[in-house]
């Protein structure tokens, strides 16, 4: 029967493998990028400078969660969740407080002195180097497991091969979705959220309207710090904690913020997903999907064992390509970001 023959030829197995690697993989890394990029884009929009220590704030948040989880390793047991996740709100609060303090100590004096934007950026590079040093000082340079127990793995059977999602990955999706919806309602419904958008739109007019810029700035740091901590913690739960954990993702996070349109939190989410999916698609080994076709191809055509757009080691270049492509095609970002 030709139908049955055709069905057996369909690479279901390989397709599930593709979903596991690319769709789930893209969603995971895209969520992490989105959580970082929301903060970066809010800071760019409201405070008008590139906050390079954001990756280190993510690492610091994961470190706080690690400390909490090692102090109280069984908090999560009754819920069947990792303790680091249950204690994540503590890490988020600590990171938010750290962000507010960093602003007070390093950025606020420069803002008051009305310095040029480039001075702010240099100062942010300085804070980044300082945080990297501090994190290494306290956390060491080795890798640590945020959750010592084995990860719960959910398998969904799908024609021979299983769709595989681990518990930390599921928590990451759910948290990102909830955070994005909550942020949306905060920005569009609450007095402070609207004031934040007003300051991003026109800071001088916001001041003239009697909006307290100090409150808006503090709220921005609290949101950015808390989401960075969550992103760092959830990433560390999915992989491991390392001192250079988020320094490696600061480039994709910035690419996501710029690609999405600077100052646009939704753009940051879309940008994060775009960068995440492009990375996983680019390093995916396409020969897995093509291999089942081998018997139908003439003999002289041989499918190589590895066909990927870029080797995994060069994954870091992907955000740059996306950045360049989007900036040529749509210079203000996917959502119309600010250009001035």
């Amino acid at each position, binding site marked *: 029967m030709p139908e049955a023959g055709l069905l057996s030829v369909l690479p279901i197995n390989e397709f599930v493998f593709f979903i596991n690697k690319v769709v789930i993989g893209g969603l995971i890394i895209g969520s992490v990028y989105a959580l970082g990029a929301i903060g970066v884009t809010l800071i760019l929009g409201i405070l008008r400078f590139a906050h390079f220590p954001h990756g280190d704030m993510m690492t610091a948040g994961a470190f706080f969660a690690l400390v909490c989880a090692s102090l109280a390793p069984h908090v999560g047991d009754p819920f069947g969740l990792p303790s680091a996740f249950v204690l994540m709100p503590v890490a988020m609060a600590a990171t938010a407080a750290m962000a507010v303090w960093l602003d007070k100590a390093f950025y606020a004096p420069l803002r008051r002195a009305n310095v040029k934007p480039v001075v702010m950026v240099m100062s942010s590079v300085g804070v980044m180097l300082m945080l990297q040093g501090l994190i290494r000082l306290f956390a060491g340079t080795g890798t640590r497991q945020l959750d010592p127990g084995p990860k719960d793995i959910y398998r969904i059977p799908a024609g021979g091969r299983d769709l595989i999602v681990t518990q930390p990955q599921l928590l990451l999706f759910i948290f990102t979705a909830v955070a994005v919806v909550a942020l949306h309602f905060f920005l569009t419904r609450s007095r402070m959220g*609207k004031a934040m*958008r*007003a300051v991003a*739109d*026109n800071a001088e*007019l*916001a001041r003239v*309207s*009697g*909006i307290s810029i100090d409150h808006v700035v503090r709220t921005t740091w609290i949101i950015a710090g808390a989401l960075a901590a969550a992103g760092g913690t959830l990433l560390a739960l999915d992989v491991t904690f390392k001192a250079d954990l988020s320094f490696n993702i600061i480039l994709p996070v910035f690419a996501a913020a710029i690609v999405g349109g600077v100052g646009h939190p939704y753009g940051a989410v879309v940008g994060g997903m775009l960068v995440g999916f492009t990375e996983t698609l680019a390093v995916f080994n396409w020969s897995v999907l093509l291999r089942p076709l081998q018997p139908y191809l003439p003999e002289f055509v041989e499918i190589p064992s590895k066909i990927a757009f870029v080797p995994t080691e060069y994954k870091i270049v992907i955000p740059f390509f996306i950045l360049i492509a989007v900036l040529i095609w749509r210079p203000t970002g996917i959502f119309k970001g600010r250009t001035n």
Partner: protein
Amino acid sequence: MPLLEMSDIHAGYGGANILNGVSIAIEADEIGVIVGPNGAGKSTSLKALFGLLKVSEGAIVFDGETITNAVPETLVRKGLSFVPQEYNVFPTLSVEENLEMGAYVRRDSFRHLIDMVYGFFPPLKEKRRQPAGELSGGQRQMVAIGRALMSEPKLLLLDEPTAGLSPRYMGEIFERILAVNASGVGILMVEQNARQALGFAHRGFVLANGQNRFTGTGAELLADPEVAKSFLGGGD
């Protein structure tokens, strides 16, 4: 006692002073108009009054209190509102959100004020969900004035509210400003269309080189041949 009294104000942006002794006084419910050539310090006077640049000499008294160099947040609470000449709306915020931002200092309910603004500027009601940046120049100006009215000011400061508007919109904006004034809000405005504005001003202030040159009622200034010759583009 006047609602606002600026006496002998000297102010600038850090370098040389732009204002070298400006005095402006208006009573509650009045319309005051500041006119004068470019660079006379008209807009600077409003900015100095609203705490947007440093006053080095002189005193500003509003409603019985000294407010020299107070910050905008304090001034809005005390009953002053300022509409800048340019960039005076939040472009990505909807019309209604722009108005809400004008009421930011209020903790009480301000729904009735939004309705009041829609009463003054009916075109805004149907555009209330639209981003303010997408409106026409005249409608943006209505949003800007509406935003400033949301704090229920005693005195509204307008910096060239008709700049860049077509003559049709200019007349409309002037008309609405008169209506706002009739509702009991004092107005102090800088205006390029000096002849038209002095026509309805209770008080006029002609500035030149950062100082008062002529001060009087609108009608007095219009009738003064000296003012007409030097500042109103020739007598006619």
